[in-house]
C-alpha cells in the first residue's frame, strides 16, 4: 500500500494539463453545437433535431454504460477493475450536462410537438392513411405515449442517473481521504437498488426516445438492445481512457496484461450478447411475419417500389461490423490482451454503435412516398456535428472531474486496491 501511494502522488503536473485539455474539449464541443444549430437553417428543424437525438443518445449510452459497469463492479465485489473504476466515475460527471443538452428536445415537445416524435402531433399522418388522432393503435397506447408522460419520464431518467452517479462518486471520492471501508459497503448497497433502477430507466429511455419514433412498432428486446450498446460503448471508452492515461504517463505501471485481457474478454462477451439480442429481435419478427412488426424492418430494407434501399446495406454493415468483425477479432488472445490490440477494435465498435443508433433513429425521416431518406445525406453532417458537440461537453465534464474533483488517480484506499494492482489470472 505504501509503495502504491508513493507512485500515485505524482500526477500534479498532469492535473493542470487536464484542465487545459478540458477547456479545449469544451471549445470543440461548443463549436460542434454551433454547427448543429446552423444546420437548422440549412436542412430545416426535423432532420437536425433527429441528428441531434442520435448524438445525444450516443453519449448518453456511453455514460449509462459507465454507470452500469461501476454498479456491476460493486455488486460482484470485483477486484481487477478497481483501478479502472475511478475513470468511469469521472465519466459519470457527464450526466448533468447531458440533461442540459437534452433540454432543447424537451422544449420542442411543448413548443413544436411532432417535430422529433411524430405521434406528438395528432394531425400527423401515419403510414400514409390516417392521422394519429384517428389511429386506433396509437389511441390504445396513449396512456403512455403522451407528452406529459414523456416529459416526466425523461426528467425521471436523468434524475435517476444523476442521483446514482452522485452517490457512487461521493462515496468513492470520500474514501480516498478517510479510507473507511464503509464507503465500499455503501456503494454496494447503492448498486443493489441502482442496477434495477438503471435497467428500468435505460429501457424506458430507449422506448420513449427511439422506439416511439415508430409508435406502431413494438419489440420486447429493445431495452436490452440499448443496454448492450451502452455497455459496449462504456467499455470502449474505458479502453480509450486507459490508453490515453497510460500514454500520458499517469497510469504507467498500473495496468498489466491481465487487466487488458479482462476488458477484452468482457468486451467480447458483450459482442455476443449484442448479437444474441439483436438477432432474436430480427428473427422473431421475421419468423412471425406480422405486418405490425415487419414494417419496421421493411422500411429499412426496401423502398415502396420493392427495390433495396441504402438502409439495407447499413443493416448489413451492422450485422457484419457490429458482430462478425469484433467477434472474430477478439477471439485472438494476443489482440484482446494488449492496449495496441484493443484500441483499433474499440474505435471500430464505437463507430458501429453510432451507425446502429442512426439505423434506429434516422429512418423516421421520410420522403413523399413514405420511404426513409437515404443514409448517405447531408444529415450525416449534422449527426457528426452533434456527436462532436455533445461529445466535447461530455469529455470536458470528464476532464474537469479528473482535474478538479480532488479524487486520486486511482482509488488508493479501496479495500481491494492492492489486489487490483497485482491482479493476475
Amino acid at each position: 500500500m505504501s509503495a502504491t501511494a508513493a507512485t500515485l502522488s505524482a500526477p500534479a503536473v498532469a492535473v493542470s494539463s487536464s484542465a487545459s485539455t478540458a477547456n479545449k474539449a469544451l471549445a470543440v464541443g461548443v463549436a460542434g453545437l454551433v454547427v448543429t444549430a446552423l444546420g437548422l437553417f440549412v436542412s430545416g428543424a426535423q432532420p437536425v433535431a433527429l441528428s441531434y437525438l442520435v448524438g445525444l443518445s450516443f453519449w448518453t449510452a456511453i455514460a449509462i454504460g459507465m454507470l452500469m459497469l461501476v454498479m456491476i463492479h460493486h455488486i460482484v465485489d470485483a477486484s481487477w477493475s478497481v483501478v479502472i473504476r475511478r475513470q468511469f466515475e469521472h465519466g459519470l460527471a457527464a450526466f448533468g450536462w447531458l440533461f442540459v443538452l437534452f433540454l432543447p428536445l424537451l422544449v420542442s415537445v411543448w413548443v413544436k410537438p411532432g417535430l422529433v416524435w411524430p405521434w406528438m402531433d395528432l394531425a400527423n399522418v401515419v403510414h400514409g392513411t390516417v392521422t394519429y388522432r384517428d389511429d386506433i393503435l396509437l389511441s390504445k397506447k396513449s396512456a403512455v405515449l403522451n407528452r406529459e408522460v414523456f416529459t416526466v419520464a425523461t426528467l425521471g431518467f436523468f434524475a435517476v442517473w444523476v442521483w446514482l452517479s452522485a452517490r457512487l462518486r461521493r462515496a468513492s471520492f470520500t474514501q480516498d481521504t478517510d479510507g473507511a471501508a464503509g464507503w465500499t459497503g455503501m456503494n454496494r448497497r447503492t448498486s443493489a437498488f441502482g442496477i434495477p433502477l438503471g435497467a428500468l430507466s435505460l429501457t424506458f429511455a430507449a422506448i420513449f426516445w427511439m422506439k416511439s419514433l415508430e409508435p406502431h412498432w413494438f419489440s420486447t428486446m429493445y431495452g436490452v438492445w440499448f443496454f448492450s450498446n451502452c455497455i459496449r460503448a462504456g467499455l470502449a471508452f474505458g479502453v480509450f481512457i486507459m490508453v490515453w492515461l497510460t500514454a500520458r504517463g499517469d497510469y504507467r505501471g498500473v495496468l498489466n496484461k491481465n487487466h487488458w485481457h479482462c476488458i477484452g474478454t468482457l468486451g467480447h462477451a458483450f459482442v455476443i450478447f449484442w448479437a444474441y439480442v439483436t438477432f432474436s429481435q430480427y428473427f422473431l419478427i421475421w419468423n412471425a411475419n406480422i405486418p405490425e412488426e415487419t414494417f419496421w424492418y421493411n422500411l429499412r430494407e426496401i423502398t415502396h417500389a420493392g427495390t433495396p434501399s441504402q438502409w439495407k446495406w447499413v443493416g448489413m454493415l451492422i450485422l457484419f461490423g457490429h458482430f462478425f468483425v469484433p467477434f472474430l477479432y477478439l477471439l485472438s488472445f494476443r489482440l484482446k490482451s494488449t492496449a495496441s490490440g484493443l484500441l483499433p477494435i474499440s474505435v471500430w465498435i464505437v463507430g458501429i454503435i453510432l451507425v446502429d443508433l442512426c439505423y434506429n433513429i434516422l429512418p423516421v425521416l421520410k420522403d413523399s412516398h413514405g420511404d426513409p431518406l437515404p443514409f448517405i445525406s447531408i444529415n450525416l453532417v449534422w449527426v457528426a456535428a452533434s456527436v462532436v458537440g455533445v461529445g466535447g461537453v461530455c469529455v470536458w465534464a470528464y476532464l474537469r472531474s479528473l482535474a478538479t474533483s480532488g479524487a486520486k488517480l486511482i482509488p488508493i484506499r479501496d479495500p481491494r486496491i492492492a489486489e487490483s494492482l497485482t491482479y493476475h489470472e
Partner: protein
Amino acid sequence: MPAQPYGLIATFDSAAAIYHAAEQVRDAGYRRWDCITPCPVHGLDGAMGVKRSLVPRISLAGGITGFCTGMSLIYWTGAINYKLTVGGKPLFSPMFAFPISYELTILFTAFATIGGMFLLNNLPMHHHPVLKYDHIARGLDDQFFVVIETADPKFDSKLTRDLLEQAGGKNIAELET
C-alpha cells in the same frame, strides 16, 4: 544393462526456490521436464517457459465444424431431402438455420476443448513414473519437485544432476520407468 531410468527428481523447500530453479532449467534449454507443486505457484509457467496452450486452436476448429454442421444439416433436410414450405418461408434461409448452427458451434467447441485438453495432456493416464517415488506424497503437502526426463535431448546423467544441484535441488534421485 538396466533399463534407462525415467528421469531425475530433485526436491525444493519453497515456492521461491522452485521458481528460480525452473528458470535455470528453462535457460539450460530443457524441453521434457516438469514441476510438481502442492499449490499453484503464480508465474511458474513463465519461469518454465511454457507457451500458450494449443487448446484454443482446437476449440476454434471445433466451433467452425459445429457451425458448418448446423448450416448444412438444415440445408440438406429442408432444401434437399424433404422439401416442405412452412409459413411461406423459403426452403432454406440462414435465418432459421442460425439457432441450430450456433448451438452446434457451442456444443462442438465444448467437445473440442475437452477432447483437445485430454489429447494434449496424454489423458487418460493411469500411471506415471513419479508415483513410484517414495516421497511423492509430500508434493501434495509441503515440498516441491523438479523432474527432468531422460528422454530430453539435452539429458546427460552427470550434467543434469549438476544443474539440479546448482539450482538448489536436494535429494536428487533417479526415477524408475
